[in-house]
């Protein structure tokens, strides 16, 4: 299992693409400040509120039609506590606590994330 002549070149290209992806994510990461919880379904913001409002035990129902998604806050952060999506990957996702943290429920086309409040000064927006 020995390497070949130009393995280093391929590994260098891959390392560069990894570094580029890290730089892009870091550059677009929200700045520190007050944190906002945001839920987006199909590209539309369906819920936005200050993360501080989501204290322990507070739950948010983000369900739509037959798609059930309920998030709640506990000492570890904001997590998905109930979802009827196949696979249930979102239920096993790490709780969100800091700016940039995200939970995605692909089958239900739902993205939940923590963003910097400086992005928008809206307290609550739901429809």
């Amino acid at each position: 299992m020995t390497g070949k002549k130009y393995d280093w070149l391929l590994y260098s290209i891959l390392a560069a693409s990894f570094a580029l992806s890290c730089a892009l994510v870091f550059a677009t990461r929200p700045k520190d400040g007050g944190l906002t919880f945001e839920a987006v379904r199909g590209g539309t913001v369906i819920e936005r509120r200050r993360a501080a409002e989501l204290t322990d035990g507070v739950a948010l129902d983000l369900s739509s039609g037959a798609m059930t998604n309920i998030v709640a806050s506990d000492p570890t952060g904001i997590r998905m506590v109930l979802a009827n999506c196949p696979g249930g990957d979102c239920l096993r996702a790490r709780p969100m606590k800091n700016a940039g943290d995200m939970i995605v429920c692909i089958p239900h086309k739902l993205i939940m994330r923590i963003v910097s409040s400086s992005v928008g000064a809206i307290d609550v927006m739901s429809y």
Partner: protein
Amino acid sequence: MEYRVKPPGKTKHMLIIAMFTSMAMVTGFIESRFPLPFPGMRLGIANIFPLTALILYGPAEAISVAGLRLALSFFLSGNIVALSCSAGGIIVSLPLSIALYEYFADVLSVPAISVASAFAFNAGQLGAIALLLGSWGVLAYLPPLLLCAAATGYAIGSLASMLARKLSSGKQT
């Protein structure tokens, strides 16, 4: 192309593809039962078989194994989202592995090709998810997935290379 074997007879050829596909499906199923620390993260053990098929027999066999596995997994699970994600990854990674192995096998090792393929798979998969969700925000997952792909891609490439060496030794084929 050091492990490439002569094309077998028609029946044996069909049996080999069926065997590789079934092994890929079984390992993929077993792998999906293991909880992983990061959503969307997979070890990709099942990819050993299309890669071994590419090393031993050629692009047509690799495409057959990967395509059949994708289609049969969809028929068994009925999960269109999983199909879209896997298809997004395979559409990008399989042509890349084939091109790298067919044209640069003399200067690139199988583990290196496998790492490149794993990178491409994750990028393609996230691209498909971003299209499904209508948001490019999921690309924030790319760095940790690429980091995982580097490790799993190398391991899978090494295993595929070992398996191809064993199978091409003449005892099993």
